[in-house]
């Protein structure tokens, strides 16, 4: 068998196995995801900015992966300015809200019972 074909299968196998391992570890809580969508306060309320960042990231990632799988040229898929704008705005909102919650007046992050 051609070494190039062997390398191809090795690479695909490794990436698939690694992705499956990471997904399995996340689903079985062996990779800590506690507080991923929480706002860091004691009551652990869900943060809307984190939810929107997660949804946007998954949507853009799926779009990029789909374009790469169905692409015909020897280039990574082009990303439209609208997609860039949405992704940038989503990240900006997340960072701004996080900064306000952590550094703004009346910050509740890190409060413990005395």
């Amino acid at each position, binding site marked *: 068998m051609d070494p190039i074909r062997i390398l191809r299968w*090795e690479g*695909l196998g490794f*990436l698939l196995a690694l992705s499956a391992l990471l997904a399995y*570890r996340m689903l079985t809580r062996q990779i800590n995801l*506690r507080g*991923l969508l929480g706002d860091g306060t004691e009551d652990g309320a869900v943060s809307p900015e984190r939810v929107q960042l997660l949804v946007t990231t998954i949507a853009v990632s799926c779009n990029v992966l789909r374009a790469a799988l169905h692409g015909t040229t020897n280039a*990574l*898929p082009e990303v439209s300015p609208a997609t860039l704008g949405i992704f940038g705005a989503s990240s900006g909102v997340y960072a701004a809200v996080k900064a306000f919650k952590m550094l703004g007046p009346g910050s509740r992050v890190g409060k413990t019972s005395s």
Partner: protein
Amino acid sequence: MTYQRGFEVLLLFCGYGVCLFLGWLCVILLIKIGRDEIDLNKLVSEANGDASMSRFQLLIFTMIVTVSLFIMVVKNWSFPYVSDGILTLLGISASTYAVSKGIQFSRPETLTKPEDRQQALDTAQKMSDTGAPVIMTPGAVISGGTPAGDRTPAAPQTSVDDSQGS
């Protein structure tokens, strides 16, 4: 002609050697991850133990771009052109992570777990009850003196008049 054939055989053996070595590396890596010898428990965790959204986003995006890049290389057997859009997406993702990290480190209490801070507070209270002066930071409790009952009174100081000649 003989040299050409010999060179091709040598190239083939080198190719198999590289395949063997890379395959061995991949298997070892997966086995170590599976046996927890490479601990991924805190892969996306912050210093206080909670999961970080910015780390999770960076992980997902890096994996997606890596897989896309690999698919392109396997399809065409040449390094693909990386579009400006992909670079921008990676830059936004990494910048969000860096900004989030900076915001988090500007608040020291977000670097420790609530139960650790409570324990430090209780320790400081107990030490303070003994009369010892206590300094408490988000990272540690420092006692700077002896308890009140163990203190000896300071010796009275005498002043020396240096203006008189000997």
